[in-house]
């Protein structure tokens, strides 16, 4: 197990290695659901839930099934981890969808197409894989997942706020909409590079 302090792990996951700004993971919900602040927050919450659950489920699978030597001296199933993780995460998202539809139909409506999108969200898969690549313990993995998701919320909330405000700005017609959103995202990512090397 690597020698990391919990605050270090959390700060690194939120700021330094922010899933969106530094790793460029989860770009599709980041761009797709950031038009309104409330849906952005809803999406962020969905990501928190799914991310933590994903790591909670994939960590034991990786550790007890797929890791080299987990099932026997000769067996190394680690080549299966990508496909296995996708499967597990996809079924998990189905579960979240069903629960949301029943419990919070308004949020379910607001998220629309984007909740199923988390199924194939690289941020979820990425964090699940990163958690075991960094050889984090189960608890560290969960914290890492939660912190990464908080990083995602931070990114998407900042971005959604900016995009809402862009609607009141005189953006040249040719750049209005998606183009200026990408430029804004780029400048935001640039600003977050200031955290590069933090704690390192």
């Amino acid at each position, binding site marked *: 197990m690597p020698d990391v302090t919990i605050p270090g792990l959390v700060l690194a996951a939120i700021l330094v290695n922010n899933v969106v700004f530094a790793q460029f993971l989860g770009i599709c919900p980041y761009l797709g659901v950031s038009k309104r602040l409330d849906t952005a927050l809803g999406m962020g919450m969905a990501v928190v839930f799914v991310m933590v659950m994903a790591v909670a489920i994939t960590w034991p699978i990786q550790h007890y099934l797929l890791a080299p030597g987990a099932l026997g001296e000769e067996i190394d199933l680690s080549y299966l981890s990508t496909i296995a993780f996708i499967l597990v995460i996809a079924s998990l998202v189905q579960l979240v969808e069903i629960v949301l539809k029943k419990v919070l139909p308004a949020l379910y409506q607001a998220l629309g197409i984007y909740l199923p999108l988390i199924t194939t969200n690289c941020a979820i898969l990425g964090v699940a894989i990163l958690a075991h690549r960094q050889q984090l313990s189960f608890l560290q993995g969960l914290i890492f997942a939660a912190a990464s998701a908080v990083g995602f919320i931070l990114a998407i909330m900042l971005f959604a706020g900016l995009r809402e405000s862009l609607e009141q700005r005189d*953006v040249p017609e040719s750049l209005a909409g998606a183009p200026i959103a990408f430029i804004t995202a780029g400048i935001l990512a640039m600003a977050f590079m200031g955290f590069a090397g933090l704690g390192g």
Partner: protein
Amino acid sequence: MTETPRELTVTSSPHLAGEDSVPRIMHGVWLALLPAAFAAVFVFGYQALVVLLLATLGCVIAEGLMLTLRGFSWKAVGRSLTDGSAIVTGVLLALNLPASSPWWLVLVGALVAMSLGKHLFGGLGNNPFNPALVARVFLLISFPTHMVASAYTPPVAGFGESSEKAAARYEEQVDARSYATPLTALQEAIEKSDPEEARAAIAELRRNYPMWHLFVGNIGGSLGEVSALALLLGALLLFWRRSITWHIPIPLLLAVLLTTGLPWLLAPDSFANPLFHLLSGGLLLGAFFMATDMVTSPVSPRGMVVFGVGIGVITAVIRLWGGYPEGISFAILMMNGAVPLLDKYFKPAKFGAAGRRT
């Protein structure tokens, strides 16, 4: 009894207007930057002047170019060019660059500031990020060697001066400048793996940069980092003209003092004194001139305080533990990004709203 009234204009109330205007504010800001510019020219010599002129001219030309590309009439272009906002960005950009900047670096910066930083969003009033800082961070990331080597000012021949003579003059003055900026020196000191060495380096730092020198400006760095005194003079002018209020700079500086002061109190040998942090680098420039940029800061008073504190804390964190010696430009850009949220969540309670009634 009746006289036929002449052409009467009918417009909506109010029928009076205050005297302040956008050009008046903008021209006031670059005027307030002049002391710092003079200090830079005084310390770095003619090279600083070249950077200042190049950046300002570059920004004005780039602004004209962008406005023309956006299809504005000549009249509108002329009005925008004379409103002073391009000059402000130009001078700010120059003050954020090292005197050793090659000419192309300055011009790229000017173009980035005016396009990416400003006109792609719709021009003055519409840009969410401070244009000069977008340019600085863009350059910092793209050309780190040119930007971080900010301290070293190689001897440059003045007009009608041989290069040998310039070198000699430089040697004479070398003790008045430093080869490294105080903050890069600090960064190196912190990064020493051996605690003993680090301690020694910090002690040396303290000898090399007496507080007084930091204050009046006998140090290396970007153009605008040299003289705290000159910056404070300019800031006073802005306060006096009511272009800025205390809501951003004061919480910002307090946050830096606190965040850098706490570790220093715990381990005075391994951390720099908070006053050192306050006076070095672009902190004062950022706090009084860039964080307070009205276009890119919150409009809610409480939001402004949070904005300032956020910038202060992030700056201090980057300085103390980050990979860059200076963090204020990153910090301001990040908080620029948070402005819509701050405006939304720190909205003042309306008159008579349940929450605020006493």
